[in-house]
């Protein structure tokens, strides 16, 4: 009897112990986190327009993901049940500093992935280091096509379309809306972004409106602030259309100075990436300005609506007091892309936290739904995203007391992005072969 009691106690203790170990092991898996380095401008000229709104959107979405507040297919908490732990890094300081910051994130902080980079210079400098360290890197914002047109990487992905799409769409808008353009001028910043934007727009107009003549092309230096002379030069030329890819404080200053001189009454103004200054300018952004948002982002996404867009739009507005412009949308599509890749990799490896190799394999050629439409990693051998775009025209809504976009035209991703294996500018000059437009 005594021995049977002894056996019972021993068995109970062993069971309790094994249960405890199992419970402990389960708790360990639940306490595991997914560390992600988020790099964007938190100071400097690009912070207010791109970095800060993007990180605001990022914080909001990470919080919602960790609480499981997003609708299906994103309703599983965190990334595949792993709580997301973000480490934010300021992108200010130049490419050399960012390369060092990236090494710190990977080697010291031991992050599982890095999501970042607004500056094209940083987007060109960091990928070779990611390859060297075999670290999973997702570029979420920068526009230069050169990353995957001139480079090939295993661990590097970009979840936003490159900048050619913005200017192709703008030129297509002129034709689809029947806007007569006999001549056009440009005011773009004097660095790669400004020159590439103008070149893409001129090439697109050359195909779509071959009779339209490019006249003045001005390239004031970045952060110039004073545009009086440029405005005079354009007004003296009297083109039908003024193209500009200015952004941030430069675009705000340009619009303040140009609209005060009535430039929008004398020619059609088209802004390749102009949506992000609307919250600051309000009614100082005149009616009738044609603008894009580097994707179906901001006001254009809101105009189209949808469960995910509406939820994020309302939460962002409630949290920060302004509507989300293009930058948070690109951050959201990047985060959802990482979530999709992590969960696909976990499905393939039996539910374990994935390695960089597994995430890269899952991300290659991946497709997912974002607030800005369907994102497909179609270019750069499955490493570069294409996405739909939208262009609209500004109109102040007096009753609502806010700016709206009217006459919005939506463009399928394959209509305004080149196919895999061809450079964007060559595709434009060849007359957009293989473009699939509805």
């Amino acid at each position, binding site marked *: 009897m005594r021995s049977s009691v002894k056996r019972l106690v021993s068995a109970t203790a062993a069971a309790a112990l094994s249960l405890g170990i199992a419970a402990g092991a389960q708790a360990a898996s639940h306490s595991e986190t997914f560390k992600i380095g988020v790099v964007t401008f938190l100071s400097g000229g690009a912070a*207010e327009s791109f970095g800060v709104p993007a990180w605001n959107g990022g914080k909001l979405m990470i919080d919602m993901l960790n609480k499981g507040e997003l609708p299906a297919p994103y309703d599983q908490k965190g990334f595949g049940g792993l709580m997301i732990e973000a480490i934010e890094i300021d992108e200010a300081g130049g490419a050399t500093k960012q390369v060092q910051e990236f090494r710190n994130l990977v080697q010291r902080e031991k992050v599982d992935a890095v999501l970042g980079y607004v500056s094209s210079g940083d987007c060109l400098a960091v990928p070779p280091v990611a390859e060297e360290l075999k670290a999973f890197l997702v570029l979420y914002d920068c526009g230069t096509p050169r990353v995957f047109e001139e480079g090939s990487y295993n661990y590097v992905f970009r979840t936003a379309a490159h900048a050619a799409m913005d200017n192709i769409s703008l030129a297509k808008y002129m034709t689809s809306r029947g806007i007569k353009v006999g001549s056009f001028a440009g005011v773009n910043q004097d660095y790669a972004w400004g020159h590439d934007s103008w070149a893409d727009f001129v090439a697109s107009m050359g195909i779509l409106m071959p009779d339209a003549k490019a006249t003045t092309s001005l390239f004031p230096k970045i*952060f110039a602030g*004073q545009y009086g002379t440029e405005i005079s030069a354009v007004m003296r030329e009297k083109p039908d259309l003024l193209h500009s890819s200015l952004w941030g404080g430069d675009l*705000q200053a340009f619009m303040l100075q140009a609209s005060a001189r009535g430039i929008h009454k004398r020619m059609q103004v088209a802004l390749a990436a102009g949506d992000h200054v609307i919250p600051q300018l309000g009614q*100082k952004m005149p009616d009738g300005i044609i603008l894009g948002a580097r994707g179906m982002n901001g006001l254009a996404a809101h105009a189209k609506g949808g469960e995910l867009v509406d939820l994020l739009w309302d939460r962002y507005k409630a949290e920060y007091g302004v509507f989300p412009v293009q930058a948070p949308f690109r951050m959201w599509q990047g985060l959802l892309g990482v979530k999709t890749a992590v969960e696909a990799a976990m499905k393939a490896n039996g539910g374990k936290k994935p390695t960089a190799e597994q995430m890269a394999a899952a991300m290659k050629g991946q497709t997912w739904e974002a607030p800005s439409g369907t994102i497909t990693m179609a270019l750069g051998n499955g490493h570069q995203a294409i996405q739909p775009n939208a262009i609209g025209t500004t109109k102040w809504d007096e009753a609502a007391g806010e700016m709206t976009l009217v006459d919005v035209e939506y463009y399928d991703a394959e209509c305004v992005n080149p196919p895999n294996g061809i450079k964007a500018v060559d595709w434009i000059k060849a007359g957009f072969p293989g473009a699939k437009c509805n």
Partner: protein
Amino acid sequence: MDLFLVILVDGLIYGAWLFIVSVGLTLVFGVLGILNLAHGSLYAIGAYSTATAVGIYFAYGGDAFPLGSYAVMALAALLVAVVIAPLLERGLLRHFYHRDEVIGVLVTYGVFLILEDAIKLIWGVDPLFVYEPYDLLGMVEAGPLFYVAYDFLVIAVSAVAGFAVWYFLNRTRRGKVMLAVIHDREMSQTMGVNVDKVFLLAFGAGVFLAAFGGALTAPMISVSPGIGVNVIIVAFAVIIIGGLGSIEGAALGAVMVGISRAASVHLMPELELFIIYFVMAVVLIFRPEGIFVRTQTRKI
């Protein structure tokens, strides 16, 4: 003819703005012998203070008398000078007057970095707008184009500011005392001049002019972090062309840069950035000390 007129008007508008943002820099160098790299930050603080003050003005009934916003702009710049000039000059710069000029540059560079962060701490990174004064005076037709009348106000204010500084230095007793200090600090001191007071006054005037430049610019731009950085670069070009420490030189340098840049934008836009430094290089080849500063013999 139309083109010539447009270039002249554009050049004068830009030149007037350049003068107002660079005259304080040359005044401080002329009196204190310090090349103040923090000048751009003081300009930015002037712009931020103006945006805040004019915003408050319109929020509390300024619409009834909108022209009053111009007085608010000037008062905001004055407040910046009254608060910051004694702190910087008495608290920091006076310890470096007898040191090498390079030390002054390094110290003011440190001040620049501190002030840039202080701006972000006080006003954050979101831009401020104060466009009401810009639209207030309407538009003016000049030749084939329309200009904002505010641009001509900037020309007038720059001309008045330049004349006031020149008049003060050359036609008033205090100004002549200041010139005496510029020419020979030790001799002035032995003659009973309170050099510390002169330095504080000159630095205060320099800070006011920097802040006033920011105040005049604020209605035209988005007031955001970093606006002072570019200003300091172009202001240096202007005062080097005119001669470090010369008020007349700053005026001529500003007009030369303004008109050359306007001509370039209208005729050869690809040279816009190059032209400012080309003008500077040409001037320095023929006048190594700048247009209004005579080459001095050096004792060996």
